[in-house]
């Protein structure tokens, strides 16, 4: 049977007008969409309000599904563990041996570090995270990479705060609702993070590519010193991220840097911590217009 919509809409004027109005509304709808889209590309923050309200509304359900996700991951891990128990045991024994030696070395280094710091008079207190929450979801169908976090302004989360997992940097808070907030992941193509090599003074930018890789761009061009397996940590430049947090591991060398895999894959993380912005003064200073002094800007 031909679908009802392709049959003639009779000779009734009323029915014909009804069909025509449908087309007009659809066309106007598309037009409004195009205008709203242009508006939100021009001013990305225009529609944050309704979006964060909507996200707050589904946060409880997302929280539950995140829990199920974490549990099922654990279950799969456990089953996989049983299947590979024998060979894994041998490997692990070997690793423990090595780790013990490294641990002893690390102890020594830690002590030396403390001694040197005491010598320099640097007091470094542990920072407490602002909030610890689950990543409750992500924009997994869109080519922008956002994740949703189960903590919002109620928990003290503010825009710009860095988000990290036990493994490394996850991203930065982009907008905050009451109970949930949106996080710009490192792999988003708008995300740029200043990094440096963990055991060297090579500084670079890590840019998201939109697929799950980061592009490392060296600041000092010349001979490319990177090797596969090099680890990048945050350099602290820019003032948002505390220096020394793991970011990425080099997977492939390119002409002006490297392609790197993120260390803290959001798919594998369960709980994440939201930290204070490392140097709020520096960011405020960077945002102040050049004609104005920072203290002046504070007074206004």
């Amino acid at each position, binding site marked *: 049977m031909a679908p009802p919509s392709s049959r003639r809409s009779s000779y009734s004027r009323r029915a014909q007008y009804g069909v025509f109005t449908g087309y007009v509304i659809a066309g106007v709808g598309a037009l409004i969409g195009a205008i709203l889209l242009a508006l939100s590309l021009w001013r*990305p923050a225009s529609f944050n309000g309704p979006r964060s309200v909507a996200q707050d509304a*589904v946060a409880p359900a997302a929280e539950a599904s995140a829990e199920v996700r974490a549990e099922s991951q654990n279950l799969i891990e456990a089953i996989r563990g049983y299947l590979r128990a024998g060979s894994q045991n041998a490997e692990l024994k070997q690793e423990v041996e090595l780790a013990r030696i490294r641990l002893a070395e690390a102890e020594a280094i830690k002590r030396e570090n403390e001694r040197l710091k005491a010598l320099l008079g640097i007091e470094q207190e542990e920072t407490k995270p602002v909030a610890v929450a689950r990543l409750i979801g*992500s*924009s997994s*169908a869109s080519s922008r990479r956002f994740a949703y976090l189960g903590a919002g302004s109620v928990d003290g989360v503010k825009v710009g705060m860095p988000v990290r997992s036990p493994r490394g940097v996850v991203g930065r808070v982009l907008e905050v609702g009451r109970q949930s907030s949106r996080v710009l992941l490192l792999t988003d193509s708008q995300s740029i993070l200043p990094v440096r090599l963990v055991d060297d003074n090579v500084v670079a930018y890590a840019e998201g590519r939109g697929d799950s890789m980061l592009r490392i761009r060296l600041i000092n061009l010349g001979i490319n010193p990177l090797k596969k397996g090099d680890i990048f940590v945050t350099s602290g430049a820019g003032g948002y991220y505390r220096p020394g947090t793991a970011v990425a591991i080099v997977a492939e060398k390119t002409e002006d840097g490297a392609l790197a895999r993120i260390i803290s894959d959001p798919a594998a993380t369960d709980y994440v911590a939201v930290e204070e912005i490392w140097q709020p003064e520096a960011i405020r200073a960077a945002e102040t217009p050049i004609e104005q002094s920072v203290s002046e800007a504070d007074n206004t």
Partner: protein
Amino acid sequence: MERADPRSRRDAYGSRINRAHSPLLAYTVPWATILLASLLPVFPIATAAPIVPPVGLMTMLAWRLVRPGLLPVWAGFPLGMFNDLFSGQPFGSGILLWSLAMIVVEAIETRFPWRSFVQDWLIAVGIVTCSIVAAACLSGASLGPPLFAALMPQVLLSLMLYPIIARMISTLDRFRLLRVRILG
């Protein structure tokens, strides 16, 4: 006295005695399933690359193709707006792309009124592919070959997923017209 066939008073939607279709069910099921499907990509996993197909759009297309005449042409506007709240795309891209998708289906239907399932499948996948690429271009992301390479798995998954969604929609369509007991 025995009945010739105990199922003689039933049809696909249940017994016909003292039961009638519920207008509430008949009108809300399509919209509700599309709204739920737009929420779905938020839940399952927090990925580093976009891999989940645009399930909301596919559900809308499936309703439109499986059961024509149920969704009005302008359905893309409100449904796309809802999808924009959760998709992470800039607000308005869903409204635009979903409205266009509905208009395109309408145009195709006027041109080819007699179609088989395979043709419906191709139409749906064609529209979804175009909208994934267009959404990537309109997302405000910086465009490059790696971004488009990352879209491939999503497109292929959509291709595989459409028949499943279409089957689910036809089941839901039977549920939509289920006869429920009349009170009073």
